Structure formats: C-alpha cells, structure tokens
C-alpha cells in the first residue's frame, strides 16, 4: 500500500517536472542565501573566538595599562613578588609581504588553563614551546614567516587568522620590545594579596566581559547580515509556499481517489509529510552547497569590511563547519514545514466526499482578503509600537520585520483596488476585459508579487542608506581631512625638528597627540589638538555651543564623538571626566562615521599636562603649495612614506567604504533575482489554469498572439504597480535603518537623503525582470494548440 501510495504521489511530480523544479529551486535558493550568511557569521565568530581564546578574553580578567600602551617588566615582577597570579602577554604587529601579522607572546607556564597554547590543534609540551622557541601560526602567516625568523614555524589552523603565537620572550625579540602589553589574571588568587592600587596603581583591571570588545562590536554587523539572510529566506519561502499550495490543490482529486480506494488518511498524510521531508533534504543539501559558494565569494569582502569597520581580523578562507551546514539543513526543514503545514492541514481536514476543486488556490475569496487586511493592520501596529517604544537592535529588527510582512500582506488588496480603479476608467471593452482579468490574476500571483515587493523595498531601503551614508561620509572626510599633508616623524626629536622647520612656511601646524585610555567606563581614544582656524572652520558639530572650539582651546571644555555620547548617555553641557579629578564640560558632539570607539578631544595644553610623557610624532599641516612643501621635506631628510597627501587617505577611506557595502549590494541583487524567479515560477505554474480563463476570449475573437502579448503586458503592469508601492515602504525601511538600527548597531545616526533617479532605475530593472520572467509563459500561451483551447468547451478536460 505504501509503495502504491508513494508511486501515485510521485507520479504528480513526474508529470509536473517544472513545478518540482520550482519547489526545489525555491527552497534551495532560500536555504542558500540564509546558510551563506550563516557560513560567513560562523567563520567570523570562529576567528574571534580563536583570537580571544589565546588571551582568555571573555573568560579571565586582565590588567591593562591605565595610559600608554605598555606595562613595564618591573611592574610584572613586582606583582608576582606580591603574590599576584598573573601571566604576561606581549602583543604587536609586524609587516609581512605587504600585509600585517599579529604577534602574540604568552607564557605557557603561568597562563591560566584554557588560554595560551591550549587553543592549538595539538598543544605542545611547555618545554618544547619554551626551549625550542617554536612559533605556531595561522597557515597563511606561517608561510610568510618561514625563512623570515630563526625559530621553527608550525602552521596550525587553531590559531586565529593573521596571527602567530609564541613564547613571550620570542615575541618580545621579534617585536623589538622589552615591556609587556597586558597581564592575564588567574581566576584563583592566593589569600591576602595586596590590593592592585598598592602594587601597581597605573594598571587597570578589565573585567572578562569588557575585554571581548570585538565580539560585542561585530555582533551588530552579524545581526545585520542575519537579518538580510532572513529576508532573502522569507522571499524564497514565498516561492515554496506558492508552489506547495498549488501542488496540493492540484492533488486534491488524487487524495480523494486514494482515500476512496482505501488508503487511510493517516497513512496518506504521513506519505505527504515524508515526500516533503525528502524534498527538504534534497533542496537543503543543494542550498547549503550554494550557500557555501556564495559565502566563499563574499567572505573576502566581509573580511575587509570587518577589518575596516572594527579592526576585527577574520579568515578569508571558508571551512565547512558542522554547525552551519546543520543549521542550513534545519532551516530548509523549517521552511518546508512553514510552507507545507497549511496545505497538509487542509488535506487532513478535507472531507472524503469534498469536491476535488483545483483552482481554489488561485482564487482567494473576499473573506481571505479581509483576513489578510486585518493581519496587515495588526502587523503595522506591532511595527509602530516596536519602533516607537522599544530600544535595542532585536526590537528594531522585529519592528522592521512586522512592517515588511504587514506591507506584503496588504499588497493584494492594494493591487486589486488600483486595478478596479483602472477598470472603472477603461473605455474600450478590450481594456475593461484586460483590467478585470488582471485583477483576477492577483490572488494567484500574490505570493510572487509579495516577494517582489519585499525585494524591491529592501533594495530601495538599503541603497538609500548606503547612498545617504556615502554623501555624509564624503562630506565628513572633507571635514576631518582638512590638512593638506600629514607628516609622520620617526621619533619625538625628529618631530620637534620638523615642526621648527615648517613653522615659517606653513599656514598652520597641527600636532596630533593621542593615547588609548578608558573614558566613561569604556575603552576610548583621547586626543590633544592645537585649536586653530582649521578646526574652527572645518570641524562641524552635530550639536555644540557657539564657542565650542574656543572653550576647548582655553582648556575649559572637551568635545566628544557621537559614539561616546550615545553609548555613555552624554550630551552637550554634561561633564566628562577626562582624568581622575578633572571633569570638563562637553562643548560639542561631532560625527565620527566608521569608527566604533569613543573619542574625546582636548586642547594640546591640557593633554600634555595629563600625559607629559607623550610627545607628538604626527602632524597635519596647512600650506599654500603642498608639492613644494613635500619637496622641501624630502630635502630635509624625510622619506616618501612619511609624507602623506590627504587625498591618498581619502581615497583609501572611500575604498574601505565601498568594500564595506559590497556584501550588502551582492545580497541585494541576489534577493531581487530570487523575486524575479518567483514571478517566473508563478506565471509558469499558473499557465495551466490560465487556459480555461482565456479560452472564452479566444473564442470571441482575440488571437493567441494577442493573448500572449496581453499576458506579457499584465506581468509588466503588476510588477510596475508593485514596485511603485515598494518605494514608500523602502523609504520607511531606510529611515528605520538610518535612525534606529544604525544608532543601535554602530552608535551614530545618519541624515537621510532620497535618490529618485536610483528608484526609477530600480523600477525599470524590476519591470524588465518581470517582462523577462513573463516572456516564456506568454510565448507558451501564444502557442497553445487550438485543440487545448477547444477542450475547455467540450467538458473533456
């Protein structure tokens, strides 16, 4: 019985291969985009974990310098002698064949368990690590290091990307330094150790969770990617839902026959579920494979984005990780369950003597439309509440999801309304028939059109965000890179000589003083600047007092970036404690796009008073003839790389920016392509039930060629109307991305600009995609044999 039942069910797909391909490819595409994004996230997280595990970040507290970048060896010895169980770490970067490698030195004898060498695939004995001076490096780095260092280099995929792990002594030698970067604190400390303030008052204890900055910062980026993957998955799901719905409707007659011939309902439903499970496995497998290819293609750009935005290093090569391909298969199953459960439920509840029907799927009743309308309204309310009341990235995405789904559900009713208006204004009978017939097609095409609406809205929303960002960013670069040249001195002595040399010719010399520190309970960068015309004329504020720079120049105020302001809940007029016992009022908040870390800017004098040991080695200069200045500086003895034109920095920054959004642009195009595919598959599957609808028009004098042309026009009209409706939705999406998601994810808000020409191009592209998708079904319709059309009237179908 089982075999006979399966053969009957399979015979449907065998006879409807196109429908089967639609189902499988829809599910595979949905899974591919989702699992591709998950593969990228999984690879990146593995890289962060590997990097963090070496230093026990996220697990052990650490001691970091209160100011400056290093801890003296003497301080470490003093702490050990006082009984503190701490382990030294030396960190730094070296150049290797045009790239940078992170050098990490640890002490395996004192490192707490779970940090240091324990991350290696095959951890060595401490004696081997110490005595032989062996270096364990990520495969790419190992290759570059071999031959460049005396120590033996072992490639180990367990080491974080672009990183080499070695004994602390070997690292110090390689980095040519004699101090330490940080100290890992063992979780168990002896009783009665003296307080840190008594032994090493310059050091700051950093909690385990505070240290995992990269993970925290990049979470938002990965959430963005996940949201995009989910959107693509939903678009794909629309295809699958439509195809399964149609396939089940078409098999109602078969189901009734099978039951009438004695197949129990439970067995039948189980067989249908089994059939869907098999499809999920096949499509899931293909989807995961496609996802792997997509992720492989996008990963280098994602790596560049993460490095550019957060300084996070991730591997540029993809590994097959069980967690993501299992998740991919899981999502394929979940998608199939979501798409098929309704249809299965209807089959399970169908009375044995029910009419087989067959076109109900494509003819939604007014009641269904009303229900969809109510659901759309409810989702709109959810979206409004989530976006206006809530805080947090997840809530913002939930609001966004509700907004998009609500709009998708409202689409059929909106389209039917617009088409009814067109019908009422039509004069010729042919036009009236065209609009009425188009209206009749909306329920059957609604899932594909919803997919197009979502894809187009996402495209408009994201491109508006990116273009707004680009405009703001270019303006921001002009503001921040106002100096004509930037000079990097070799040391403080040379810096002083350069300053004296330039003083007579330069309009303005701006030394850049900088230290990494903690402000408002978070890691931050503190800058000291010489306030002059350049700052006053070019550095604008998002909000600030009229004389903000004057107050900074006089040492009476500080200005901070938007990230710090939003993260710490500070704004103009509040005080920021820039050093113990030195609170300064905030005179301005400036935009600082692309930087995840908080920044505060002080006057040069105040900075030097707080950090007397730091002298500037970098300068920005304003000068009438920069080519002449460059030549003079070269004569003075500076090498070419020490003199940087601001235009070069701008070009580099814009390059990073463009790569940052390559991934988003690629996902955008993929999602839109999936929507185009949805239209094609819907039209093809609908073609079978179109013949009875079109046969009367043919019988009354329309040629088959006319019918084909009108079918093409119908798809174009529906796609065009859908994209027009997608414009306001896309702009709402852009607003949420810029004003809510961006603030939550990155800590800054961007102004929103609109780009009508871009939207017109998208509409053209969408209409062309719809026309291309409709071309084949229309051609098939135009070539329908008259005998098939005649069957409609002879009751033999």
């Amino acid at each position: 019985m089982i075999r006979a039942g399966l053969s009957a069910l399979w015979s449907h797909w065998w006879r409807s291969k196109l429908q089967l391909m639609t189902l499988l490819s829809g599910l595979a595409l949905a899974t591919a985009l989702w699992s591709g994004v998950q593969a990228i996230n999984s690879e990146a997280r593995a890289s962060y974990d590997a990097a963090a595990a070496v230093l026990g970040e996220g697990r052990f507290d650490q001691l970091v310098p209160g100011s400056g970048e290093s801890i003296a060896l003497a301080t470490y010895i003093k702490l050990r002698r006082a009984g503190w169980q701490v382990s030294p770490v030396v960190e730094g970067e070296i150049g290797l064949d045009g790239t940078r490698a992170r050098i990490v030195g640890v002490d395996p004898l004192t490192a707490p368990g779970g940090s240091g060498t324990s991350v290696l695939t095959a951890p060595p004995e401490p004696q081997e690590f110490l005595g032989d001076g062996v270096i364990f490096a990520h495969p790419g780095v190992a290759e570059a290091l071999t031959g460049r260092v005396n120590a033996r280099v072992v490639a180990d995929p367990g080491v974080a990307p672009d990183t080499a792990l070695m004994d602390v002594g070997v690292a110090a030698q390689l980095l040519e330094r004699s101090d330490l970067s940080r100290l890992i604190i063992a979780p168990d400390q002896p009783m009665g150790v003296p307080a840190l303030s008594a032994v090493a008052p310059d050091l700051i204890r950093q909690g385990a969770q505070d240290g995992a900055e990269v993970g925290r910062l990049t979470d938002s980026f990965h959430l963005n990617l996940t949201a995009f993957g989910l959107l693509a998955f939903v678009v794909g799901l629309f295809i699958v839902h439509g195809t399964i719905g149609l396939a089940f409707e078409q098999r109602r007659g078969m189901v009734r026959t099978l039951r009438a011939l004695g197949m129990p309902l439970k067995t039948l439903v189980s067989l249908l579920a089994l059939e869907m499970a098999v499809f999920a496995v096949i499509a899931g497998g293909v989807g995961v494979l496609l996802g792997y290819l997509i992720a492989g293609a996008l990963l280098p750009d994602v790596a560049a984005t993460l490095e550019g935005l957060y300084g996070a290093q991730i591997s540029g090569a993809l590994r097959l990780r069980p967690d993501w391909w299992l998740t991919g298969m899981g999502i394929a199953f979940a998608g199939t369950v979501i798409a098929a459960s309704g249809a299965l439920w209807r089959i399970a509840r169908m009375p044995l003597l029910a009419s087989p029907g067959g076109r109900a799927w494509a003819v939604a009743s007014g009641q269904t439309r009303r229900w969809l309308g109510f659901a759309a309204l409810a989702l709109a309310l959810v979206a409004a509440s989530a976006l206006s009341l809530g805080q947090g990235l997840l809530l913002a995405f939930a609001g966004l999801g509700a907004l998009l789904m609500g709009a998708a559900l409202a689409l059929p009713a909106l389209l039917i309304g617009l088409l009814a208006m067109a019908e009422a204004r039509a004069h010729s009978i042919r036009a009236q028939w065209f609009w009425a017939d188009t209206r009749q097609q909306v329920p059957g095409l609604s899932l594909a059109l919803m997919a197009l609406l979502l894809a187009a809205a996402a495209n408009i929303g994201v491109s508006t965000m990116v273009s707004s960002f680009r405009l703001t960013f270019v303006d921001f670069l002009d503001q921040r890179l106002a100096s004509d040249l930037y000079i990097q001195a070799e040391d403080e002595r040379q810096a002083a000589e350069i300053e004296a040399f330039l003083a007579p010719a330069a309009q303005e010399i701006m030394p850049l003083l900088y230290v990494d520190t903690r402000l408002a309970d978070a890691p931050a960068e503190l800058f000291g600047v010489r306030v002059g015309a350049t700052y006053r004329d070019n550095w604008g504020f998002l909000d600030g007092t009229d004389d903000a720079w004057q107050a900074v120049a006089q040492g009476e105020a500080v200005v901070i970036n938007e990230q710090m302001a939003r993260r710490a809940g500070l704004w103009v007029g509040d005080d920021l404690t820039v050093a113990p016992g030195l609170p300064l009022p905030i005179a301005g908040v400036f935009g600082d796009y692309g930087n995840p870390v908080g920044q505060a800017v002080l006057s040069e004098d105040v900075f030097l008073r707080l950090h007397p040991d730091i002298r500037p080695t970098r300068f920005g200069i304003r000068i009438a003839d920069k080519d002449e200045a460059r030549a003079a500086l070269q004569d003075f003895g500076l090498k070419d790389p020490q003199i940087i034109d601001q235009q070069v920095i701008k070009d580099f920054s814009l390059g990073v920016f463009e790569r940052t959004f390559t991934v988003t642009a690629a996902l955008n195009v993929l999602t839109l392509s999936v929507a185009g595919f949805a239209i094609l598959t819907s039209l093809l599957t609908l073609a079978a039930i179109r013949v009875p609808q079109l046969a009367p028009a043919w019988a009354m004098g329309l040629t088959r060629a006319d019918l084909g042309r009108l079918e093409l026009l119908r798809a174009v009209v529906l796609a065009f109307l859908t994209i027009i409706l997608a414009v306001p939705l896309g702009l709402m999406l852009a607003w949420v991305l810029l004003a809510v998601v961006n603030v939550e994810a990155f800590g800054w808000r961007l102004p929103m600009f609109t780009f009508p020409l871009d939207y017109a191009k998208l509409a053209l592209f969408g209409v062309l995609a719809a026309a291309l998708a409709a071309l084949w079904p229309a051609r098939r319709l135009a070539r329908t044999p008259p005998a098939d059309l005649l069957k409609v009237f002879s009751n033999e179908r």
Partner: protein
Amino acid sequence: MLLEVKNLTKSYAGPDGDTPVLRGVDLSLDQGETLALTGESGSGKSTLLHLISGLDLPGGGEIMLAGKDVARMDDTARAELRRNTVGVIFQQFNLIPSMTVAANIGFHARLAGRPDVAHEAALSEALGLAEHLQKFPEQLSGGQQQRVAIARTLAARPALVLADEPTGNLDEGTAAEVIDQMQALVSQAGSALMMVTHSTALAARMGRQVHLSQGRLA
C-alpha cells in the same frame, strides 16, 4: 448473504435544520448477484452507495458487509474495507491524472496488496484498452476513461462492486457497451454488483431492480 442493510437512515445538516435523505432503508445482496438501484435525482441513491462503501457514516441503522458492521467501523477499518472488499466506480471516473492507463488499472490491486499483471492485461484486452496503456487519462475519451475506472475496480477483485451512474457521461450506445462488458467481467469474477442508474434500459440488464423514492425503497 454478502450485504444486509437494515433500517438505514441519513440526514444532512442544512441552513433550515436537518434534511433527511434516507428514511429507513432495508436491502440485501447475495454473492454474485447484480442489482440496479434507480430513483429520481435527490432520492438518496448516491448516499446509499457512499454509506455501503464506508465513504460516509449513517445516522442510524446497520450495514452488514461480509459479516462486519460498516456503521460501527472506525476510519482505518473503513479504509481497509474499501481497499479489500468493496470497489467503487464513480460517475466522474476519479482516475489519477498523473499516472498512465496501465498504472491506473493496477493501482487499486497494488493498494490492496494483490497485484496480478496477467489479470490486469486480460481486463485491458477485454475492455479494449490494450493499445492505450501508456497514455494518460486526459488523452482518452470519456468512454475510454470509464473503462479504465471499471478495469481498475475489477483488477482488485472486490467482493462487492458499487457503481455510481458509471455511464452518466456516456452516450446511449457506448453506455450499453460498457455495461455489458462490466456485467460480464463482474460475473466472471464472481463479485456482486450494485449499480445506480437513471436509465430503465440499463437497469433492466441487472438481475434485480429496486427503486428509491424520498429516502425509502419502493
């Protein structure tokens, strides 16, 4: 006795309350017997067939088929009854459109777990379907499709064949031809046949005739 129906009742719920369709039907049928069930539209002929075949449940009464009370069977048992004991030939053929004629003919027998290729071939030959075996139902005429439905039922060798206006969609000449073939094959298989029909001419070809009027046998 193969089939014994006693005091069978059935009503359908409507907007104005329950509408009785069968008001106490008594009927019996022996092994190998043929019976024509006639009556005007809405008299309850199809309903009676549906109840006997276990496609629907009665409101009251008893249907003893091969010694078992169909009215008291659960869903699974009634499915088993349709699989193994009863064969229903529908007016609308109810063939599986995605399977070939050959696969359709053998389908019920395979579902019942007793496929017999030689028997199927013989039925195809007898019903004039041999040259259409690899075609799909939509490629056949109405008369040919009805023959496929008959072959499918007989291939499963049911003890009782129930035919619900099997020639309703056919012209008079074709209908007579199909009924003759069906009767001969049913007799050959030793099955009992109960056929619903409007046609008095076709009814006259059956061994016995009963008339259903307003839910009761006349």
